[in-house]
């Protein structure tokens, strides 16, 4: 059974059919790419997968459980985490706290314990600090732990967003244009990091990308979206040589 199984997913905004008859099947451990021109509906697919939009049609199964139309927070607890095309960090909090918020559901103590500073407060906070630093160090961000998230340079903000998503301990990680706005060096670093977290965290990854080099370099499978519909799907090499794809996307 696949980790993610999506059948006939579709959504309409008024008269606009943004995504139609979208199917995808992702196996555990895969690194999967979702590509397509601007406005093709890629981000909309992510928004449906994470419950930010309710799909008009279709079903989404994660590990065999139906998560269609569930609340975003529930879907995260079920094992889906994501990043955003236009970064959404908790800008007024430190880098460390951003990751600790990702750890919120794995390390618990109550509101009263926090207010009265009971021993459990100190124990749990210490464990959270350690875990958060461990995750940050994978990205080399541990030295920025007490910097405000909004003060990080752009490329590091993207990495912090991935770190925060990983902190929720997901089975499936959705990355929306992780290399957007990065220079070639940063992009290369990012590719390495993505390959590394996949190994280290044992997480399945679906990523949206514009950068062809990044996609062909690391994704095993691709789905190409055009005008909300699947244009081509399969092994990376096959898809990249599909004449339809070359005509619609790569050619221009």
């Amino acid at each position: 059974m696949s980790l993610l199984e999506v059948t006939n997913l579709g959504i309409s905004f008024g008269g606009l059919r943004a995504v139609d008859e979208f199917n995808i099947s992702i196996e555990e451990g895969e690194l999967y790419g979702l590509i397509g021109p601007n406005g093709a509906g890629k981000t909309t697919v992510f928004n449906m997968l994470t419950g930010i939009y309710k799909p008009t049609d279709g079903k989404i199964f994660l590990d065999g459980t139906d998560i269609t139309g569930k609340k975003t927070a529930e879907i995260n607890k079920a094992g889906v985490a994501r990043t955003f095309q236009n970064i959404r960090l908790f800008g007024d909090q430190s880098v460390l706290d951003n990751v600790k918020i990702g750890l919120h559901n794995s390390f618990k103590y109550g509101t009263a314990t926090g207010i009265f500073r009971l021993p459990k407060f100190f124990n749990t906070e210490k464990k959270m600090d350690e875990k958060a630093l461990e995750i940050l160090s994978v990205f080399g961000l541990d030295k920025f732990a007490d910097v405000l998230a909004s003060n990080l340079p752009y490329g590091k903000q993207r990495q912090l967003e991935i770190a925060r998503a990983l902190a929720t301990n997901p089975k499936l990680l959705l990355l929306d244009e992780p290399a957007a706005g990065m220079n070639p060096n940063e992009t290369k670093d990012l590719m390495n990091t993505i390959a590394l977290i996949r190994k280290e965290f044992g997480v399945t990854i679906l990523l949206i990308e514009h950068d062809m080099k990044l996609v062909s370099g690391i994704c095993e499978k691709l789905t190409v979206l055009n005008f909300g519909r699947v244009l081509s799907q399969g092994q990376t090499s096959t898809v990249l040589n599909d004449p339809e794809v070359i005509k619609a996307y790569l050619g221009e």
Partner: protein
Amino acid sequence: MKMEKLKKLTTGSNKSTTKLIATIAVIVILYAVMTILDATGSLTSLMKGLLVPVCAYSLVAVGLNLCVGYLGELSLGHAGFMCVGAFISAFFSKAFRGTIPDVPRFIIALVIGTFFAGLFGFLIAIPVLRLRGDYLAIVTLAFGEIIKNVINVLYVGIDGKGVHFSLKDMMALGMEPDGTVIVNGAQGITGTPRQSTFTIAVLLLIVAVIVTHNFVNSRTGRAVKAIRDNQIAAETVGLPITKYKLIAFTLSAAIAGVGGVLYAHNISSLTATTNTFGYNMSIMILVYVVLGGIGNFSGSIIAATLLILLPEMLRGLANYRMLIYSIVLIALMLFNWAPSILKWREEHGLKAIIKKKKEVQ
């Protein structure tokens, strides 16, 4: 390497502890100054009468700052929560005046007043916090007004048969001759024991500052701030939005309730007018929060203290009083918000000086 990092992080959390200690120091200094002025007889009786109200409104401002600064929601009804705390605790204190000794009665009144203010906050927040934008401001504004108006026509009396309510007049209570009227319509509650001393008020203010500080620097507080910073991102990392908004708003209303309890036990005649608990007051409290700095609890206290005491201190200047008052308002606003001054404070302010000293060491 890791140990080093952790040690550094503890310094990070020390930063917020330093801020807390500074806030408490500010309160203690203000307390000492006022007590000395009082002992040397340099306080007018009007000024003396303002000491407890200053603490009461500071508490409400701290509560509102939790709501505005950390939850990121605008409430225009915090005077309403203060009002709930005031009337419920005063009702209790008056009703049990003869039956429970002073100290435990005041403590119970405090608990009850705080609890009910929090409960009202909770009940209002359930429907409203699910909405976005200005709805909370509008509904809390309406709530404050409704509470005030209901209390103005509310009659409650106690006699041998139990408690009687009416929204018409005293006669409609139908009381036995031995009964007493406790809430008397627009005249409110008279004869509440005057138990709020300046010392108790300052102690409660310090407790509130510690509670809010610990709250915003805990797991729950982080979640609340995350929701404020970016609600969609907060949902995608699995935070239950409504739950944390409810917790923060309830706590904020409860703290306003503590202010109400203090206020009610400082005057012998408690009435609900526009200036004590109406939208006028709610807006004034918002002014304290904004001028003192959103998210900055000690700022709220300083702003409330200055702006409540100032008109009194300037009384000698007669006609120029309000002119100077407005100049101080503008000066405060500039001091807290003007970009060039913010920059100057960053470089030359108290924190910068402390930091430099440490670097030298």
